[in-house]
């Protein structure tokens, strides 16, 4: 099935009433969690995962992905109006977005942000259609050594890109890999690190871990503040229209942000966040007046807001074509598909076209819904911010508890949620990103399985394992990304030291 035939078929799936409704619920919930500071899309996706168990896999994927990209739209609203990022992907938006609000141009910033997100989201779906199909065809040739190289390279790259010290990121990776070994060994069926617990034989469930480190931890941070209410600027409908000059200045940043975002999404790491910083830097470098950035430049809103939506689309490519999630959000989507007995990967596009193409088509519809929801109804979403934070925090905690229990009616999952909630809170206080741990927990079992299969195949030859063309290329690229920057700094430092100080 070619991309156009696939898309037509996909629309016939996505336009089914149940899928349209799931898409609407997903983007609506996504917008709300995006607007609310402290509650991110990953926590919300984990929270709603159990409610998708009874759905068709395509419907479940449509709803959960809607939350992910919907949050990128909602996050900008809070950044622009309140000077607080609604979610991590909108941190950069507040630099110029809030300055525009102070100048009375909040409406224009919101409109450009929504249109930029829509354009990038729609272009990103074209990218998925083209790249995922091509990559899936290539990936059919992959064997265990290639998959091992991709998972190892992915984890190494993520450690480099997750921010903070690389040693801390590696500690988080080690923790995630170790957690991934708990439970029954997939090859010999031997129980490992279960301490006699029958429930632990199934391994550490991903969803309570994610709910803990992203949901409970964030709520504990909110609890620190007690009763707090945000100061919100009001926006009237007639103020939403940007001037002709603002449209003109935003066109190219939106186009560049879309491309930057999509490409960043293909790489392991916190793509939605990273892409906004890259897009902002690109816009600043391209500008004739870079010194004005941070004072209310529309380019500083348009580029990053397009980028974070492009990145959410890009992140779907490795998930759908290789079956490998490179971020916590796509790990949840993988979890949702696995629960339904589907294994994303090169064969999914041909064997379950209704899931792949239905999902792709739904992203066009979802982006259109978001554009309609986010412009005229911006005032409605902003009222969510007026809800007392402590009430919201308590209700989210209760939903996390009942959500974790309902996954498999297990008390163990409740304890996992609480333990990782407290651990995630401690990580936040230490400014440590938990993403490497979460991604390593997902990729670890895959890495172990492919490593052991590859060693069987190569009769224990490590050289054969890493010397195959694709494995070698991936590992060299990952090593270059990992060790290149510190080596460059070292060489520069020595050069500077050799130059005699003047005076």
């Amino acid at each position, binding site marked *: 099935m070619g991309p156009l035939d696939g898309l037509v078929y996909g629309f016939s799936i996505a336009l089914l009433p149940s899928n349209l409704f799931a898409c609407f619920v997903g983007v609506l919930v996504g917008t709300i969690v995006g607007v609310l500071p402290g509650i991110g899309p990953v926590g919300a996706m984990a929270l709603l995962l159990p409610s998708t168990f009874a759905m068709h896999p395509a419907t479940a994927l449509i709803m959960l992905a809607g939350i992910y990209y919907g949050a990128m739209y909602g996050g900008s609203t809070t950044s622009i109006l309140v000077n607080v990022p609604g979610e991590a992907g909108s941190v950069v938006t507040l630099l110029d977005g809030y300055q525009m609000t102070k100048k009375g141009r909040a409406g224009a910033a919101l409109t450009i942000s929504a249109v930029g997100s829509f354009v990038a989201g729609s272009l990103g779906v074209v990218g998925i259609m083209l790249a995922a199909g091509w990559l899936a065809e290539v990936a059919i040739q992959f064997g265990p050594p290639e998959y091992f190289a991709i998972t190892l390279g992915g984890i190494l790259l993520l450690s480099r890109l997750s921010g903070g010290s690389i040693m801390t990121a590696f500690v988080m990776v080690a923790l995630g890999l170790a957690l991934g070994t708990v439970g029954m060994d997939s090859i010999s069926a031997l129980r490992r690190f279960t301490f006699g617990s029958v429930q632990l034989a199934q391994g550490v469930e991903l969803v309570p871990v994610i709910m803990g480190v992203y949901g409970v931890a964030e709520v504990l941070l909110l609890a*620190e503040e007690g009763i707090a209410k945000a100061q919100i600027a009001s926006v009237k409908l007639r103020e939403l229209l940007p001037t002709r000059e603002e449209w003109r200045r935003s066109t190219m940043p939106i186009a560049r942000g879309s491309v930057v975002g999509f490409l960043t999404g293909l790489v392991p790491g916190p793509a939605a966040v990273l892409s906004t910083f890259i897009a902002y830097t690109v816009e600043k470098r391209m500008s004739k007046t870079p010194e004005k950035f941070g004072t209310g430049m529309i380019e500083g809103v348009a580029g990053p807001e397009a980028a974070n939506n492009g990145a959410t689309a890009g992140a779907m490519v490795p998930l759908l074509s290789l079956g490998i999630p490179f971020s916590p959000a796509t790990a949840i989507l993988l979890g949702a598909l696995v629960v339904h007995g589907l294994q994303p990967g090169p064969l999914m596009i041909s064997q379950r076209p209704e899931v792949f193409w239905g999902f792709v088509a739904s992203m066009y519809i979802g982006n259109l819904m978001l554009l309609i929801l986010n412009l005229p109804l911006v005032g409605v979403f902003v009222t969510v911010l007026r809800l007392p934070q402590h009430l919201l925090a308590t209700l989210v905690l209760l939903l996390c*508890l009942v959500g974790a229990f309902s996954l498999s009616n297990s008390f163990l999952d409740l304890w996992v949620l609480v333990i990782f909630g407290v651990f995630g809170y401690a990580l936040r206080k230490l400014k440590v990103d938990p993403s490497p741990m979460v991604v390593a927990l997902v990729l670890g079992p895959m890495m172990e399985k492919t490593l052991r299969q590859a060693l069987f195949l190569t009769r224990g030859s490590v050289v054969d394992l890493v010397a195959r063309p694709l494995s070698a290329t991936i590992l060299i690229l990952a090593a270059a990304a990992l060790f290149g920057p510190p080596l460059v700094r070292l060489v520069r430092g020595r050069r500077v030291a050799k130059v005699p100080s003047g005076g």
Partner: protein
Amino acid sequence: MLARVVPLVLFGAAGVYLVLALRLPFGAIERPGAGFYPVLVAVFAIVVAAGATVSAFRNAPTAETDAVGLDAASRRRVVISVVALVAFCLGLPWIGYPAAAFAFVAVVLRYLGSGWTAALLAGALSAAGSYGLFAVLLDVPLPSGPW
């Protein structure tokens, strides 16, 4: 302080993990057993935890790494929330979901700053609402307790 204690604890945990991993069948490199990969992970964990510990002790604590201090009221709110979470997990099998949810919401809200009336009302509404949604509509078998 915490920035130094955490890597030390992780270093110790990595050591324990290695000991447990070594008890599993290692196999051989051409036929790796169930313990092969955990041993590799344990060695990696020990090396990086040692590196993080050395780095934490070498570098003077910065304002950023030490920014974990909270005022007494904030600390109390966080501790109460965590204690309530633990109490919920302990109480759920015995008193059932509706009672545990009611008590959880009422206590947390009260200590986060609501009055008793609002806290009790919110507790009752949220317990009834979430029980109706999950147990009745979504058929999740939530423990109902002795009642």
